[in-house]
């Protein structure tokens, strides 16, 4: 069944399995970095002069070439334009000219490269509740490159490896080279590994957090949203793990971004420190929802179909804090249906029934509602639901089957 199923133990686009996780630096408490101390070390037009950094940039060029050619990009200009504007606003001095690659990967992540491009995973867009949060993630990532964390991390890794013992083999090589080659991403499966290659120390994370808070506050977003992002992420991880009865899943964002309770506290303290009393901050939730709206069904679909019920449920409930609607109720039903534990079918049926009561219910909600009615023996109502589905979506892929049921 399914040629590749036996070969893959788990599709992990983030960690790629072999990337070593950044150690959770246990024990040592990290002193909070004050936002006002965070100034960019990189300005527009910056070009590296040191050999190893030049080598690193060359590799990033190769990465960009591979990414730009992948099948997995969302190229909708409205969305990428919206992202570009946002990145230009909070990404620091150089970010206005950045190239954006939005990859259709249902995981939370984003990365900015000093060579002038950013990669955003679609899972990020699903999880952010407002524009401030999205800006916060972007600002955090730009913090990493504005403070030159990448080259520092690169050099740290080089020091740790034993490559320098091979003197003879390095002879004649132009440039000291670096520990890891970024550019050989022939396959999508490795796309995620680029985001785990830079392993930031706890100190670097503190800097990025701090810088991020400052950048968004300067733009007029409430800096406390930075803390909210992480809180939501942690909640999702815990929900996913709790459902499975074990600890946090491997290959998550937390492998590269160590997170501790004190980090939450630091973020809140940052926010408090730079919030100017009397200044008006706006998280721009409506603007965000409007811009992301067209792809939200796809984002939910990708997430729910991973069948990680703990995480999906948590996400839907978080999004529902802004109000339930037909779309969310439908996908809530899908989560139950896919989870399929005792009692889940009834829960799914209830969710579908709730979904169709909303004006924005997706067509599929009618079909799924009809299927549940059919199973309950309410065939007249079922047929009516099926007919409604066919009216909304006469060219649906499964229209032929539904038609045969609708009578």
């Amino acid at each position, binding site marked *: *069944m*399914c*040629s*590749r*199923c*036996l070969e*893959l133990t*788990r*599709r992990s*686009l983030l960690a*790629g*399995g*072999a*990337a070593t996780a950044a150690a959770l630096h246990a024990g040592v408490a990290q002193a909070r970095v004050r936002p006002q101390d965070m100034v960019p070390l990189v300005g527009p037009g910056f070009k590296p002069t040191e050999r190893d950094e030049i080598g690193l940039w060359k590799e990033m060029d190769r990465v960009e070439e591979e990414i730009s050619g*992948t*099948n*997995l990009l969302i190229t909708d200009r409205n969305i990428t334009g919206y992202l570009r504007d946002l990145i230009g606003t909070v990404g620091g001095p150089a970010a206005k000219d950045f190239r954006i690659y939005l990859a*259709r*990967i249902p995981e939370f992540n984003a990365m900015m490269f000093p060579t002038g491009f950013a990669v955003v995973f679609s899972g990020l867009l699903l999880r952010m509740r407002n524009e401030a949060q999205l800006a916060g993630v972007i600002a955090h990532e730009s913090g990493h490159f504005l403070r030159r964390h990448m080259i520092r991390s690169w050099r740290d890794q080089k020091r740790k490896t034993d490559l320098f013992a091979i003197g003879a083999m390095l002879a004649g090589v132009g440039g000291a080279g670096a520990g*890891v*080659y970024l550019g*050989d991403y022939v*396959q*999508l*499966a*490795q796309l995620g*590994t680029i985001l785990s290659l830079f392993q930031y120390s706890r100190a670097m994370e503190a800097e990025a957090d701090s810088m991020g808070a400052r950048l968004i506050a300067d733009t007029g977003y409430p800096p406390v949203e930075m803390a909210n992002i992480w809180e939501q992420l942690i909640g999702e991880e815990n929900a*996913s*793990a709790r*459902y*499975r*009865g*074990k600890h946090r*899943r491997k290959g998550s964002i937390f492998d590269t971004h160590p997170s501790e309770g004190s980090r939450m506290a630091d973020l809140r303290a940052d926010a408090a420190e730079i919030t100017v009393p009397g200044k008006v901050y706006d998280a721009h939730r409506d603007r965000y929802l409007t811009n992301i709206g067209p792809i939200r069904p796809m984002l939910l679909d990708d997430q729910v*179909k*991973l*069948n*990680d019920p*703990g*995480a999906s449920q948590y996400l839907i409930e978080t999004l529902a804090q802004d109000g339930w609607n037909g779309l969310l109720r439908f996908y809530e039903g899908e989560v139950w*249906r*896919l*989870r*399929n534990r005792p009692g889940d*079918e009834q829960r799914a049926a209830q969710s579908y029934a709730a979904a169709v009561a909303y004006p924005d219910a997706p067509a599929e909600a009618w*079909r*799924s509602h009809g*299927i549940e009615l*059919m*199973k309950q023996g309410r065939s007249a109502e079922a047929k009516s639901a099926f007919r409604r589905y066919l009216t909304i979506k006469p060219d649906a*892929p*499964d229209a*032929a*089957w539904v038609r*045969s049921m609708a009578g």
Partner: protein
Amino acid sequence: MKPEPRGALIAATLALAACSSVGDDYGGFSDYSAIRVQRVNVGDDRLSVVAPRPWNRHRPVLFEDVRAVEDWTLNGPLLDGISFVTGLRDGKSLIRQRRTTSQQVPIFRSNMTPPEIAAMIESLYRVRGGAVDFRTVSLQPRSFLGTNGFQLDYEHLDDDELWRRGRAVGTVINGQLYLVLLDAAKSHYFDAALPDYEAIVASAQLRR
């Protein structure tokens, strides 16, 4: 770090081969045996089919395969494959998985309708098969094994960046799932295998 499977195993197994020969393939452990052009039982032996020409049957590896599922291929499972599901029972899934895995392939339920079975197949590909995109092309009624079954046509993009196409013809009899599925690279291989597949589906018979 980039995983490098082929280097590892190629280096290891080439020792078995003679040097620098234009040769044939002998030796090595093959997971495959040839199906002859005659009626054969598949899967749990509940179903029998006839192939119009020899295919390669994948020998089940202990602990990894579900008894009711059998896989065939012509050019290798990365390029094409026909899978038979013969009497999958309520509560079973199409593939073995650990209960603690965070992303689960849904299990089969006897009261599943074709859209739900289609969704189960989609999840299989997304969760385990490395599919990053999956599109249902059509779902329609189709008679199979003398009952009112269904035919699902789909496409998926996998993490090796290759688009693949699939067709599944199935039905539920006495609460058990019977399915014959073709999955192959969209470029060339699916179309090439389709006539064989349709012949095999037409030949399928339930065994008592």
